[in-house]
């Protein structure tokens, strides 16, 4: 409790007999002096810290660009220690951590940044890359989509396209074609016309996702714009081949320079396309003689394949041959042998269809029971599939 007023006045003189007014003056002067010293010291300190932070950050940038992620990590750590609230430093530190394989730490930094700016495209994309490396497809898709629809400070269209491309690459690489399909369609739709580089990238992604028709359109678009792009020609050829458009595929493949045409995948597809085109009697515009020749050849090939297959199933000396569908098909072929000749087909073109059907059946049965087949057999199966597709339509 306070003492009575009269008893509780402050004594006139303080320590060492100085007057109280003098003490107060000294106090205020000291306060002003200390304030000035503190302000100066704090200002110098902040300045030095900022300079050091910037120096370390710049060093980190050059080390990172030079590919030395380990050294960059140390630099970014130092920069961040001097400026722990700087989001740019933190972001780069996280990038360096991720580059050094320390995904968990990188993720911790990025998640903290994300809590401050949840709409940031950069942060979402960096997080998407990290969770993609951890094979967390759902999270990766979430972060990629947040990046695509997020805020970008510069070149937003370019950055969004890039994020979408990365998402597509990730999904295609993972074999998640169901999820990849809408992303690829959106990517193709958002690709600026005339940007050959991007169109080519999209086309290749569509090829990898086996979206042949869209891939062919994409590559055709590049070629129609006048660009003589071997990548686009090759992609268009592959897409046309897989769509069963063999003549187009051949024409694309034949436009390729030699080094490209000799690539195993291209060479195989070109050979197969030629074989299909050379063995299909149902191509429009063929002369009857040619149709008859192709039918007779197809029957011969199919019979040979079926015979070999039956013999394989019932080797010579086996006591009781196994009855099979293939054997009965062979018997049918044997019975029709007299009529189903090249001349017979010329005389009666109506025989071509049943003859080819039998050939297709024999090839189909042989493929399911004996497995591996020659290119000619394969070509016949492709023709069969193509015919089945056409009749179904």
């Amino acid at each position, binding site marked *: 409790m306070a003492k009575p*007023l009269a008893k509780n006045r402050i004594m006139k003189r303080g320590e060492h007999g*100085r007057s109280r007014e003098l003490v*107060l003056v000294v106090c205020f002067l000291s*306060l002003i002096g*200390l*304030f000035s010293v*503190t302000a100066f*010291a704090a200002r110098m300190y902040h300045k030095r810290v900022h300079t050091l932070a910037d120096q370390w950050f710049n060093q980190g940038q050059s080390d990172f660009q030079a590919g030395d992620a380990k050294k960059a990590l140390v630099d970014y750590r130092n920069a961040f220690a001097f400026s722990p609230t700087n989001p740019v430093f933190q972001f780069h530190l996280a990038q360096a951590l991720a580059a050094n394989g320390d995904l968990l730490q990188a993720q*911790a930094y990025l998640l903290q940044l994300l809590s401050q700016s949840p709409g940031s495209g950069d942060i979402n994309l960096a997080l998407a890359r990290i969770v993609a490396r951890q094979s967390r497809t759902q999270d990766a898709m979430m972060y990629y989509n947040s990046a695509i629809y997020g805020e970008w400070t510069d070149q937003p269209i370019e950055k969004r396209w890039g994020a979408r491309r990365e998402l597509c690459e990730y999904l295609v690489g993972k074999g998640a074609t169901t999820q990849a399909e809408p992303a690829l369609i959106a990517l193709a739709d958002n690709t600026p016309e005339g940007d050959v580089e991007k169109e080519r990238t999209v086309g290749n992604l569509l090829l990898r996702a086996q979206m042949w028709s869209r891939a062919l359109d994409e590559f055709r678009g590049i070629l129609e714009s006048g660009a003589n792009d071997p990548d686009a020609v090759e992609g268009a050829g592959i897409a046309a081949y897989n769509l069963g458009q063999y003549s187009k595929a051949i024409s694309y493949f034949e436009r390729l320079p030699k080094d490209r045409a000799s690539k195993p995948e291209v060479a195989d597809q070109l050979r197969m396309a030629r074989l299909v085109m050379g063995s299909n009697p149902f191509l429009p515009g063929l002369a009857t003689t040619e149709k008859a020749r192709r039918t007779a050849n197809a029957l011969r090939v199919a019979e040979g394949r079926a015979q070999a297959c039956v013999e394989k199933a019932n080797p010579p000396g086996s006591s009781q041959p196994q009855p099979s569908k293939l054997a009965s098909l062979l018997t049918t072929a044997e019975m029709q042998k007299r009529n189903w000749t090249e001349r017979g087909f010329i005389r009666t073109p109506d025989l071509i269809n049943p003859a080819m059907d039998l050939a297709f059946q024999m090839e189909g049965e042989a493929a399911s029971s004996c497995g591996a087949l020659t290119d000619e057999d394969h070509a016949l199966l492709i023709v069969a599939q193509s015919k089945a597709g056409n009749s179904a339509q």
Partner: protein
Amino acid sequence: MTDATIQVNPAAQSPPGETGKTGRFKQIRSIWESWTNRLFAMREDQLFLLLAVLIGVFAGLAVVCFRVAIEWTQLDLLGSSFSPPILRVLLVPTIGGLVVAFLAIRIFPGSQGSGVNRTKAAVYIWNGYVPFETVIGKFVTCALAIGSGQSLGPEDPSLQMGAGIASKIGRSLNLSQEKIRLIAPVGAAAGLAAAFNAPISAVLFVIEEVIGAWSGGVLGAIVLAAVSSVVTMRSFLGADSLFRVPEFRVVRAQDLLAYAILGLVGGAASVVFLKWIAYARPRIDRWPHWTKFLQPAAAGFLIGVIGIRFPQVMGAGYSVIDQAMHGQFAWDLLLALAGLKILATGFSFLSGTPGGMFAPVLFIGAMLGGAVGSVEQHFFPGLAGTIGTFALVGMGTFFAGFLRIPITSVFMVIELSGNYTAILPVMISTMVAFFISKRFQKLPLFEMLARYDGMILPSIEEQREQVAPVVEKAMQRDAALIFAPSDPLEKLTGSASAKPEFPLLVNSRREWRLIDREDLKQLAEDRTQTHAVADVKAKGPLPTLFPDQTLEEALQLVGDWQVLPVVNRADGSKLEGIIALADILRAFRNTPGE
């Protein structure tokens, strides 16, 4: 300019021949005098509050300079890289230790030792006197020690610097002895608040550990000083906390077990650390005096050796705490850092290097918390809370176990996290650690250090836990005869003769009086006009007591009364018992632990 201003213009009021400058000077002087007269005419309590603000500003400025000095020294001596070159890591703390030892022993002898205990000693022994040289000594030696990598923190020195500044101001203004004694804790709170950037924790710490009681007279001044120092500090260094605290997620009831386990681990670790200090300190004190010049250097070298591989243990380590709280270390590194920091801090502290233990204690707690959290989450992935959450709670846990200040620890975590949801895990964890530490280490750290320094300061922990004997324990029940004033005299005399040893009490509307048996005897001889108890002469009214009042209070009231009535708090006319001086003395004699 208006007419009014012209009127008060000193030049206009100057007598003929006096210049305008002299007149203005006179006016300033008169304003100053009137202001100071008004100021010094204030009651001392009011002036004390005003001084608290001034002390807070001074302490805040001093702490800013101190922190800048530490950082600057660290940058100049150890460099700006997170992992300095090996030679530097070894040489800087060693040479720094040599210089610090020389300064602390030869130039600033008051700079060694615990700032908390020195402030406590100022309150209880030295009448509030903290030499101002200590402020300078602490500033210089601690800045050099911490800046050169010794594993110590700036909080305890800041506390002592604040106390020193406050003491100097109080003495200079010739405050009363009582106020000078209390002004040191006010400055201590200001210093600690600025160093911690946590005013509530600082206020609680000073009340819990330095003063040991909630005193209304000083509480206001402590709060004002803490707030003004933090405001001052923030205006120079920013409002950011010493480390960024992660978001604290709401904890489910079943997760609290995980925090109890953290309390067990934190408690055990704090006991290990305390035991080591208790074992090593008296032995090191017995070494020859000349070794004191080399001890900080030896400690610096050992810390340097640790720092080659783990530079995180050097210095106060706030940035490392920050990293741990953001889950940037794996459990094994966290555990290693906790263990090595205990070693490094032990080396620094035992060598007598000036500096505080708060920051290292927070560091160890954060690392332990993070490690325990990581391991628990490995085995129970469904546990709520991040590693940062565990690190945050771990800080409070180790703080409570090591310094034995549970209330401050709980509030510190809440204040630092700014999230009230942390309270349940923190309370559970800190209490477990506190009780483990108390069970296995009798003396708390500050008391232990005070005894090594040859001082026996009042034990705050004992004070806090001491149960004062109460009236209820000493009073006699059913040992008095109670009468109403309207009772017939026959009833009084009859009862009095039936129970001759019982005092005779008269109760009227909650007022109690005592009838002397001698008076009753005389009355019996002279029965002329006495018919009722009211007519009997009775002493009183008697002071009354309640059963929960302390015996000290009873002792003050009992005076020359034969007995005092102990009444019910809800009903003053209901007698719970009676108490006499002999009962009080007997109860004091039987009270254990005195």
